[in-house]
């Protein structure tokens, strides 16, 4: 059980850490100053959430690993995030669509975690749910702006959705870890989260005059540490100093 809880907490944490990394790549390069600032706020939210979860994962594991140890000294195969969040930023439509698809999953998940039997996860979700509410608001509004904006923005948003859709299946994967924690009342069931995701996506895409992509082949593997090639580069960058100067204090 503590093994499953460790993995589950890492999954929650790694999604946020990797997404934060991607969003932080925008800092200084945003389409307009106001949006640059907004994206960085979001990157900071996720970084804070990830730290809380990594600290808790370290406790659950009980081997004295800190949040930094878990972030900087695990390799690609030990990361548990979904493939969606490691996808490159692409144009701004890709970044917004990636945010939106993640938010449509993450907000109901945080809501549901408030009823978890694990007090730590409840406390962490309690803080994250407010942030996630704002994130979904921000990404939904931009989806609508793009979809119902100019021809170019509509086209870009549709392309982004089509490109990323294959990575949404993994958000709701039902594997042994998930099932075990579901049974213990710690992890919320995927079914209702998926239903909430569907209803958010349908509603927002309708207003955005965008087409919901067909459910075709769904990519999986991230939750088990089988990632796209992108993650290796993210970690090579993120972990550079810790790997080059082992044990140094910063």
């Amino acid at each position: 059980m503590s093994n499953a809880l460790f993995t589950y907490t890492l999954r929650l944490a790694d999604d946020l850490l990797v997404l934060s990394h991607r969003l932080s790549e925008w800092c200084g390069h945003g389409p307009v100053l106001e949006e640059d600032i907004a994206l960085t706020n979001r990157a900071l939210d996720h970084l804070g959430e990830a730290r809380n979860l990594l600290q808790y994962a370290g406790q659950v594991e009980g081997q004295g690993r800190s949040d930094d140890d878990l972030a900087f000294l695990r390799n690609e195969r030990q990361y548990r995030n979904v493939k969606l969040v490691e996808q490159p930023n692409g144009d701004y439509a890709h970044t917004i669509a990636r945010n939106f698809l993640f938010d449509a999953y993450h907000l109901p998940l945080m809501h549901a975690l408030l009823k978890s039997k694990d007090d730590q996860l409840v406390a962490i979700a309690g803080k994250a749910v407010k942030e996630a509410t704002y994130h979904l608001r921000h990404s939904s509004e931009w989806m609508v702006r793009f979809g119902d904006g100019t021809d170019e923005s509509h086209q870009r948003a549709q392309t982004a959705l089509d490109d990323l859709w294959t990575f949404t299946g993994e958000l709701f994967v039902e594997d042994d870890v998930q099932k075990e924690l579901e049974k213990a009342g710690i992890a919320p069931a995927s079914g209702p989260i998926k239903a909430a995701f569907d209803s958010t996506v349908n509603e927002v895409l309708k207003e955005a005059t965008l087409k919901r992509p067909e459910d075709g082949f769904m990519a999986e593997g991230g939750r088990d540490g089988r990632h796209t090639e992108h993650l290796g580069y993210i970690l090579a960058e993120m972990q550079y100093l810790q790997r080059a100067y082992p044990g140094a204090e910063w």
Partner: protein
Amino acid sequence: MTEVKDLEALFQAKIDAEQKIEPKDWMPEKYRKNLVRQVSQHAHSEVVGMLPEGNWITRAPNLRRKAILLAKVQDEAGHGLYLYSACETLGVTRESTIDDLLSGKAKYSSIFNYPTLTWADIGAIGWLVDGAAIMNQVMLTRTSYGPYARAMVRICKEESFHQRQGYEIIAVLSKGTPEQKDMAQDALNRWWWPSLMMFGPHDGESAHTAESMKWKIKRESNDELRQKFIDRTVQQAEVIGLKVPDPDLKWNEERGHYDHGEIDWKEFWNVVEGNGPCNHERMKARIAAHENGRWVREAAVAYASKKARKKQAA
């Protein structure tokens, strides 16, 4: 003609009486132009200044440092925004101000044309570059133009952690492994002189100083501020066991200040004229952000006007 003269006398009287000038007040065209130049240059510096530090966000050595650096670089974006806003009160839109930057017509602080090669450079920027900037910015909270002064008050409040986090980085490195200590000393060696250059040419050679002082846009001269910075920073270097790379640096008991060696003005002008190590990359990055953002900005406007039309029709 006499009328303008009267107005100018009235204007100068206001300035001398320490009254702030507000956007709708009459002001000499040269005062306005001087301000637009300085405030927009300041705004550009904040925004271009995001790039060298942004270079290390994804490589920050731990999660605490990463959060600090993100928040700090984000602050610079905010400061750019406040300053562009102050500029707009003088009748120039942000768009046109940015166009001047991207076309190369407007300048930004040359310091940001130097590269951040190691993590220690992030410490050096906070400690030295922000330290030098703060000297200037504290002075500018008392500048004569109201919107500029107000923006500076806000900026100074937010900046207060910037220098401290940089000095903390350098202090930790200088106590660290021999490699880390070398990294810290190397960063100080590379950033010291460019930081001194940030205060601009000597008072006698500065094109705008006299006028700016008369109008109280600036309130202390380049050399005065530079001296203040040196006096403070040398002590801070000593505390953490680093050596300031100036063989002529010596305490002058009589003056009550440090004497220091001469700045390499050839390098200074060379970087100003566009030949610094990163001038080209910095501009390229800003142009790319602006160009790639164009369709985003257009989409938002298109959607907003569609929505407004719908609301009107309803």
